[in-house]
């Protein structure tokens, strides 16, 4: 029964995603509301460009998980903007498998902006998968390279507070985003802006206006409205003694 429910949820979301994608492609009207957390990415890039100092980006120690997939879309956006404005982008990786992927994304973004000569593979750095060694490496970069903005998007463990406090000490404007509930309080406390939970997953659609991503985001909205309806109906039913 549970497996069947899971299959139903999965296929309903896929189906709804297709319908919303087609609807958006037809009308072209942006259906997403303003998300201030994501607008702050432009603020971070603008600040770094004005100051002539680098932007630092990291996806945390989480490896290939959903938060990291969502962070790749943010990285693509940031890389394109930095290529466009001639701002230096430094990336710190803790997971060796993430390293070539981030390099691919940044390289492709620089090519897409017609700035292949500005792409420097040496700015994409691996610091080992030891959380503490990675943190010390990131601190070093933030201090020595005097980064103006620190963008942390992905899945984080206990390094969240260490990284964001390191960013504060180097005076960087900080934007974080994760769905890792134990780490969110630290980002909210220490960073200038935080994308909370699903806001990180909305980033790709919001920043790129890609019809597929927008359609998928609207399907997520439909699933949330369904979840709200089920919870409220179920709670009321169980209050009056009806069991489901």
């Amino acid at each position: 029964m549970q497996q069947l429910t899971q299959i139903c949820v999965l296929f309903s979301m896929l189906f709804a995603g297709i319908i919303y994608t087609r609807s958006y492609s037809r009308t072209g009207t942006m259906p997403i509301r303003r998300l201030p957390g994501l607008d702050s990415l432009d603020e971070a890039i603008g600040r770094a460009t004005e100051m002539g100092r680098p932007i630092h980006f990291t996806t945390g120690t989480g490896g290939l998980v959903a938060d990291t997939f969502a962070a790749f879309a943010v990285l693509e956006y940031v890389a394109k903007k930095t290529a466009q404005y001639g701002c230096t982008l430094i990336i710190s990786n803790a997971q060796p498998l993430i390293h070539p992927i981030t390099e691919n994304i940044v390289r492709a973004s620089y090519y897409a902006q017609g700035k292949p000569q500005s792409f420097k593979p040496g700015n994409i750095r691996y610091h080992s998968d030891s959380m503490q060694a990675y943190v010390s490496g990131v601190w070093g970069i933030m201090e020595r390279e005097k980064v103006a903005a620190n963008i942390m998007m992905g899945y984080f463990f206990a390094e969240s507070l260490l990284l964001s406090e390191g960013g504060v000490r180097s005076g960087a404007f900080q934007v974080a985003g994760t769905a890792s509930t134990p780490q969110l309080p630290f980002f909210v406390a220490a960073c200038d802006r935080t994308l909370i939970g699903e806001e990180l997953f909305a980033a790709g659609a919001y920043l790129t206006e890609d019809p597929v991503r927008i359609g998928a985001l609207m399907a997520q909205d439909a699933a949330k409205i369904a979840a709200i309806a089920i919870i409220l109906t179920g709670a009321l039913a169980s209050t009056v003694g009806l069991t489901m």
Partner: protein
Amino acid sequence: MKLTLASFLTLIAGVTVLADHFVVVPFINKTASTFIQWSVMLSAFSTALGGANILAVHTKRMSGKSANRGLSALLLGSMVTWLVIGLKLGMESQVYKFIWDNVYGSLSSTLFALNAFFVASAAYRSFRIRGIDTVILLVTACTVMLGRTGLGEAIYPGMPQVADWLMRVPNTAGMRGITIGGALGAISVSARVILGLERGYGGSERGMGVSGYDL
């Protein structure tokens, strides 16, 4: 949607591992567990890519006129020495264990323990009242913090119970809402990866063709 070798492999791997979750078919179940095992091994292979990056970045820095040449030399020296010791003498050797316990272990624990200072400094900064959000954050954080110490109980005997309630009810509600939303986002982005609809790094080639990645 353009089907390439890369996107085809993503699709096959994704669908097989997903199908394994829903059906009991020995062939699919065995193939899925083999795929997961292969992925773990491929991740292990990628560790050398990280090592190569460190080597490239710091060799370049050493050959230039950077003020940090000495630091890069230290990094490369420690990496190569440690690698040779690990591979030649083994991880069970005396020298490996000494450095592991007293250098690596000590640095890890001390760096992690800096959290104790940072948890206070972050709280100090964020709890300066900036609006209703920070008022709520401040009140709940202080209540739970006090409820977890003897001081809170001395101020108000019911403080530990209030702290427990805050953790049990509002905390559960908030975190559950975030988890539900996050799960939908995770399902959505992962499904797009499997179907080759996420750009840049997986199946779809949009944005990647210019760098000659089409397969």
